[in-house]
């Protein structure tokens, strides 16, 4: 039973990260109809930028905030320069965002090399025990931050004026623009938020899993799979899909074999794509031709 809880917690931790990355995908997808294949790179850059700031002697909090803001601003730039010009063209959007991810990974190699960077854990105490289960303090940080962030995002989208304009743009950007909502700015906001959320995911997981130039790509793929599982374009579904994928992976590697971890993820992707491409919560009609 102890093993079960141990696996449950590690699954939840990974699942929260996948969920955050998936929400990042959703935020961009809803307002722009672009799937940002460079989403995972936000997490990688966030973590590496924060690690560098810390080595310069800044406090963890300040470094993290700077890292998050920098990645967000970078995302706005990318949207403005490379993604807005192609409009609604799906194929070009895919290839351009892949190009962006190639460039960002290359930049990370030039700036940080291929070695993994470590972040310190957020609290002094490393582990504590609940019964026979050992819980890393960072695991609580990850789960706590994710839940707070997801809740805050939900409140933002449903309770604030800006959040409502954001949802209006997600439903129909053209109509929203006619209602006087600056749709271009909302696009920028979407990219800023997705970059920030991605960066937060990268920063909180970095103390537990080392980050290096290509860590983002793997996170991005898992986040996308979480989106498919939960229903593309649905933020609640994205969080749910992330947690589900994390748990499945953890139990598969705990009870079957650790080599099965990635196989499970891809299997889930294919199963959902072919059997229920709308995901658990999404609408099937949206993806069906």
């Amino acid at each position, binding site marked *: 039973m102890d093993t079960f809880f141990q696996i449950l917690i590690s699954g939840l931790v990974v699942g929260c990260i996948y969920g955050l990355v998936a929400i990042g995908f959703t935020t961009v997808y809803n307002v722009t109809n672009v*799937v940002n294949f460079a989403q995972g790179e936000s997490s990688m850059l966030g973590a590496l930028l924060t690690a560098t700031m810390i080595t310069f002697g800044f406090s963890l909090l300040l470094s993290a905030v700077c890292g998050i803001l920098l990645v967000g601003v970078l995302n706005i730039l990318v949207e403005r320069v*490379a993604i807005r*010009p*192609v409009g609604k*063209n*799906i*194929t*070009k959007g*895919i*290839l*351009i965002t*892949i*190009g*962006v*991810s*190639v*460039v960002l*990974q*290359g*930049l990370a*190699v*030039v700036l940080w090399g291929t070695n993994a960077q470590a972040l310190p854990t957020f609290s002094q105490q490393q582990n504590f025990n609940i019964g026979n289960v050992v819980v890393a303090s960072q695991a609580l940080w990850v789960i706590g931050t994710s839940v707070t962030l997801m809740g805050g995002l939900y409140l933002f989208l449903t309770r604030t004026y800006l959040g409502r304009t954001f949802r209006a743009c997600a439903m129909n950007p053209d109509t929203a623009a006619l209602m006087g909502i600056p749709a271009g700015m909302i696009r920028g906001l979407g990219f800023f938020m997705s970059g920030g959320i991605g960066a937060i995911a990268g920063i909180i997981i970095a103390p537990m899993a080392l980050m290096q130039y290509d860590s983002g790509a793997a996170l991005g*793929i898992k986040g*996308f799979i979480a989106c*498919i599982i939960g229903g*593309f374009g649905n933020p609640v579904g994205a969080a749910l899909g992330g947690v589900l994928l994390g748990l499945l992976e953890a139990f598969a590697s705990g009870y079957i074999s650790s*080599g099965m971890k*990635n*196989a499970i993820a*891809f299997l889930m*992707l*294919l199963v959902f*794509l*072919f059997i229920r*491409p709308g995901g658990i919560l999404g609408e099937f009609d949206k*993806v069906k*031709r």
Partner: protein
Amino acid sequence: MNRAIAPVAVVLGLVGIYLSGNDYLINLGVVCAIYTIPAIGLGLLFGRCRQISLGHAAFVAIGAYVAAITSNEYGIDPWFSVLLATLTGGLCAWAVGKLMFRLSGHHLAMATLALGMIVHTVLVEWRSVTGGPDGTALINPLVLGSVDLMSDRAFFLLGWGVACLLLLASDNLIRSPFGLGLRVVGESESVASSIGIKPNALKVAAMTISGGLAGLSGALYAYWLGYISPDPFNVAFSLKLLLIVALGGYSGSWRLLVGVFFVVVISEVLKAFGRWDTIIFGLLLIAAMLYPQGWLGGMFDQFRQSRQATAGDKRGELN
């Protein structure tokens, strides 16, 4: 008359390279030929039919490994193993197409990306058959009469002979009713259905052809190098193929060569930049998408149009 200019120019250029006797140029020429063959297939699938495949390297890898394994393990005649590789590539692509074309857009892109990664993982992990990450060497060389085709010079002739024949064939194909059908499907599936074209059947057909050509190229690559490992068949390879088609103005014929030469030459030049090479490659990919005509393909178009001074069909535009 105009249609003959490109092929004649290409052949003259190739003969020039061969006669120059420069080993480096001939080596580059072989690499170009190996990129050209799968690019022709992708030109039909992605260029004409507008179906993205981020996992095309998988079919090249399947071709290479089928050729290597059938000739090494079962002692099959190398030429026959090349044929088998082509057929296997086509068959796999057909099966994949049957499944994948239920999807479109982002979902199709991710599914093909996943396919590429799954095949790559299998090649690395299935050590008993593929030799794992260390790869496997090809024991039997490709022989024609008494001539060993392993040398760059012989392979230059073989590779470009095959590539030119395929270019001629695809040039004809895209002008045939089938090719026009592909283009209609690429422009609008509803229009295609309304005039009696089955979009899915055409997509699967284009996928099958492109898979077969990818398999053929993989087999030739394996025999040329005499050694294969999973490493070259990664996502970057698939991306390069897409970039070739994009730079060649989304055509399935001779203009692809513009993209091929560009990508191969750029890859060579970028080697000098060390770690900056991937960055420049990514920027190129972005730029190629932002300038839809494909710079060089577009220039070629303008040149031709200004000569013809007619309102020719505006090909190569990605809507």
